[in-house]
């Protein structure tokens, strides 16, 4: 399946996981006959039947909590929350229940559930349908958080998340759903991607940009721009946010000595803050310049194209940050 779209890769991962393990099942709103609002579950009801694909009422708290209970009872539920903004209705179940069960029960069991949800802008969907809230979940011990930047990663991280014995939030960037990329035809060739490991997307010696999700492509564009001036920028795709690949970032920094962190989420108190903070500690001696962040400004995501375009971080901002840290 060369030229597989990101959303199709998600779909394939779900299908392959369901094929491989009868305890995997899906629950979410309009994920059955309708195949999901973004079509991540297209044809899965037909393929696996209503006993594996549950089209739920509009009850986010209940379905997330049901996943916790089903996971504690031997199943591997995969919940779809239609927009990440709606996880605000699932927080107790994710944070107080799923995340803590294993630890507070003294390691008796685990909660092998996955919650998939799209974040990000680009659809002019406005302040309640565009938020990137992954920093919240990354702050919660017991949860894992991943955020794929391309179709192959969407496949591989989702498979790994479903295999994982602990609760994993899989954050998909909705603007990437139409992105094309390669995915092997043979099921056995399709690879899982280890949670917690990042990837050097483009090597470079002068500065490092750490990013994830939709920001990876922006970072690559920024790196190309800088390359024209002879500045070689290394681009890292974190892939996993919790845990994140601290040693990969540190290792890169020890070579480039300059660091920019870029993501689509609001900059203040975002994921980037943690990465910077760690590097300002363990990487301090390596730094040649300030560590800069690129993220959304401190405002709700506005509706409307001009405003949203101005609001969303882009490659130019990464270029500007690179220039500033290298100055």
């Amino acid at each position, binding site marked *: 399946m060369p030229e597989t779209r990101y959303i199709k890769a998600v779909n394939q991962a779900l299908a392959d996981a369901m094929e491989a393990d009868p305890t995997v099942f899906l629950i979410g709103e309009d994920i059955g006959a309708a195949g999901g609002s973004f079509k991540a579950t297209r044809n899965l009801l037909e393929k696996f039947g209503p006993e594996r694909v549950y089209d739920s009422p*509009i009850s986010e708290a209940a379905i997330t909590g049901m996943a916790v209970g089903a996971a504690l009872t031997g199943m591997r539920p995969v919940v779809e929350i239609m927009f990440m903004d709606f996880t605000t209705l699932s927080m107790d179940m994710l944070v107080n229940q799923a995340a803590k069960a294993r630890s507070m029960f003294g390691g008796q069991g685990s909660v092998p559930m996955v919650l998939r949800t799209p974040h990000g802008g680009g659809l002019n969907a406005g302040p309640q349908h565009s938020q990137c809230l992954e920093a919240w979940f990354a702050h919660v011990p017991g949860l894992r958080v991943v955020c794929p930047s391309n179709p192959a990663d969407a496949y591989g991280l989702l498979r790994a998340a479903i295999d994982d014995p602990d609760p994993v939030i899989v954050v998909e960037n909705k603007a990437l759903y139409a992105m094309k990329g390669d995915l092997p035809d043979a099921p056995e060739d399709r690879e899982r991607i280890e949670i917690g490991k990042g990837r050097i997307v483009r090597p470079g010696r002068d500065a490092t940009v750490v990013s994830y999700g939709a920001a990876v492509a922006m970072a690559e564009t920024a790196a190309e721009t800088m390359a024209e001036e002879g500045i070689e920028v290394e681009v890292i795709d974190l892939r996993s946010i919790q845990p994140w690949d601290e040693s990969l970032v540190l290792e890169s920094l020890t070579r480039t000595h300059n660091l920019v962190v870029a993501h689509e989420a609001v900059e203040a108190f975002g994921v980037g803050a943690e990465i910077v903070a760690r590097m300002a500690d363990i990487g301090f001696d390596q730094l040649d310049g300030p560590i800069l962040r690129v993220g959304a400004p*401190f405002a709700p995501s506005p*509706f409307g194209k001009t*405003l949203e375009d101005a*609001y969303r971080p882009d490659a130019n901002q990464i270029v500007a940050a690179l220039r500033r840290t290298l100055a």
Partner: protein
Amino acid sequence: MKLDELARLHRQMLVIRRAEERLQKLFADGLVPGFLHLSIGQEAVPVGVSEALTDCDTVSSNHRGHGHTLAKGVDLKGFFAEILGKATGLCKGRGGSMHVADLSKGMLGANGIVGAGLPITTGSALALKMQGQGAVAVVYFGDGALAEGVLHECLNIAALWKLPILFVCENNGWSEFSPTERQLATSLDKLAKAFGIKYSAVDGNVVADVATTSARLVKAMRKNAAPAVLECSTTRVRGHFEGDRQDYRDGDEIAALSERDPIRLSATAMAQAGGTPEMLAEIADAVDAEIEAATQAALEAPLPSSADILTDVYTSVAG
């Protein structure tokens, strides 16, 4: 109902209908950013309910809120401009279709979160009760929202504290792409009964019925604060949002909807009350002109400046 009253209601419904039809075209032309949920076929509900309301009363709405907004009397130009994301919009182009609000008219906002209007309106009703002026709060929500837990919490608190809130359910049988019956093991009459809340059901496509029942309920509420539920059976003609081809829906079902078209029904009612075709035509022309003017103004209006992104996040700058 008298002819002039019927005509006024008819006109208001037509404003909503034509506005949405115009938006439908603008959307097809790529001029409407974001999601657009049309309420074509549901106009009688907010028009009928709003007859009972003044600017002191508050309403809050959901994702399918154009009718609720216009019926509450908000400015048509500001409305169009908002949905087109223009600087002259009611919300300066920052909210769009899912977040139109006009606090000066007591319109506390459309809402992108299913069920979110419920507690907001319950709180507004509490405030209105504390203020003691006999004002009431109205929340519009769909049948799909009946599955959200916050409904339960709000029915309970509204009943317990005798709040002047009218829960208006627009039951169009659909929740996005699914028939709501597959999502609910209960119904609103049963829930209202469980909480001891007065329940009324009307044909939500007959504007006079909606108006009469709402007037009765709101009048009672103004005198003795207490919640009431009004369930309006109605018809979603278009897809869940524009761009939804409704493959999941029976063609015959959609075709049959025109039988129950609230505007057609209201035209018939007018005729029965002595209305003439000329009268209808006159209303239609006036509405068309109004819509056209608002559309043009919105099309010509400037986009918001991207320099304004941080404006209005807070009232004043702290720190």
